[in-house]
């Protein structure tokens, strides 16, 4: 990775943090628990990295690490989205 590439990635990171702050301060306290579980599911995005490692052509140590990472990340993603949906379904107005 060239240093220039790294700087571009840092740009994206910093700007995304600002977007995050703007978005999340607007979430009302009543939804903070679903926010936490829902954003938790988003952090399972690392599943993309796990897929790349678990799907390597040759079976190496990377494959094993990738498989365990994939199981962890999938639990995070599936569990996170389902439990968030379960909670949000309950929020009703009479």
């Amino acid at each position, binding site marked *: 990775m060239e240093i220039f590439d790294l700087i571009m990635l840092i740009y994206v990171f910093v700007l995304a943090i600002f977007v995050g702050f703007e978005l*999340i301060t607007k979430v009302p306290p009543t939804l*903070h628990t679903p926010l936490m579980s829902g954003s*938790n599911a*988003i952090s*399972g995005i690392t599943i993309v*990295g796990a897929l790349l490692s678990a799907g390597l052509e040759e079976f190496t140590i990377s494959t094993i690490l990738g*498989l365990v990472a994939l199981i962890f990340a999938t639990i*995070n993603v599936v569990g996170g989205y389902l439990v968030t949906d379960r909670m949000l379904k309950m*929020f009703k107005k009479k």
Partner: protein
Amino acid sequence: MQIVSYLVYLIASILFIFGIKKLGSPKTARQGNFLSSLGMFLAVVITLFDQRVLTFEYIIIGIIVGSAIGAVMALKVPMTGMPQMVGLLNGFGGGASALVAFAEYYHIINITDGLEISTGVTIVLSVLIGAVTFTGSLIAFGKLQGIVTGKVVKYPLQNPINILLIIVVFVAGVYLVINPSNDTLLLAIVGISLVLGVLLVLPIGGADMPVAVSLLNSYSGLAASMTGFILQNNMLIIAGALVGASGIILTLIMCRGMNRSLMNVVLGGWEDAGAGGAAPVDGPQGDAKSVDAEELAMILDSAQNVVIVPGYGMAVAQAQHAVRDLTNILEKKNINVRFAIHPVAGRMPGHMNVLLAEAQVSYDKLFALEDINDDFPNVDVALIIGANDVVNPAARHDQNSPIYGMPILNVDYAKTVVVNKRSLNVGYAGIQNELFFFPNTLMFFGSAKEAVNKLVNEIKEL
């Protein structure tokens, strides 16, 4: 193909942002969660077409096993267990990021000889943050579940040890970049980071776990971002940064709700103050007036404005449904019933709202502290169920009180305050509550569920 996948990753990033944006209102929140999961689905599908992905056996196994475990957890967990659930999921996310970084390291040194500085740094950071999140979250889960002691665990040289370990990680990281093929260095970094996660969360008291879980939530996002740096994938960086920001904001909200600094929570300061074994500080004493269900039914019947203040004691007593029945019967009599919810009323940010939503209390009845506090002088009856420290007026005026400065619900400004409690015992902070002895306060003794059910029956008989 590469271009297509980059574009799909961009769409996924946009869906994550819209998903969180729609969490801004209960009306659109469910749709937002769906958009966010759609983004995740697209990201997974397009990754399967990546030129690097050539074998699918392990991918199929991983996805089936992970989905099954995740789905069972999500559908079985009771709403009171949500903090543990989120804690555990944070751990899996962080662990996955650390493992991916680890796998990338072996992949890179397999196909090339060297490790560029920037890649090396991000691998070390990803492993460090991910592994700390993993074991830290497991300890947090254990504390919330009662498997690990909820007490503040102090050990000698707490801060010097932790700082030393972080320095060791960085030194090992530098050596790794200089000497990339030495994988013992990375194993050492993993080991130390795992230990560090345990050491950092162990000193935090059980009642402060919500702060720890919020902070670990932030870490799990940062770990994902770091993995994005390794893979040079902007989508991972964006998604991780959103979660990182979210976790930090929730952490600060919880700290503010307890009037404590983040450092104070992280270092386990609070229970230290009262842990000397000394008797609870004697607050104001006097005669507390008690009221029985029949009398309280009449008081409520003649009220127009009622505010219920639920605390975690209500959830422990499983009294949410009884409270919902009370709300319904009062509303039938055209009495305005609202709920005032303190930021730390539950065991994680917004937890109390979820517990009440589960009991089918309409969400427009739930008010945050800053939205209802000025209105208490117009309230006829403030009914406190299972809360104590968050309604203690000493926080406003008694500089010697451990909770001085903590934002509280000003229930004492209501015309009548009714406190449902089993006895006059002290709350979590170990201090007596002067509110119980105020002239406008009535104590309604009894365990929350039975007491409220009795009250509902008395109102029916009026």
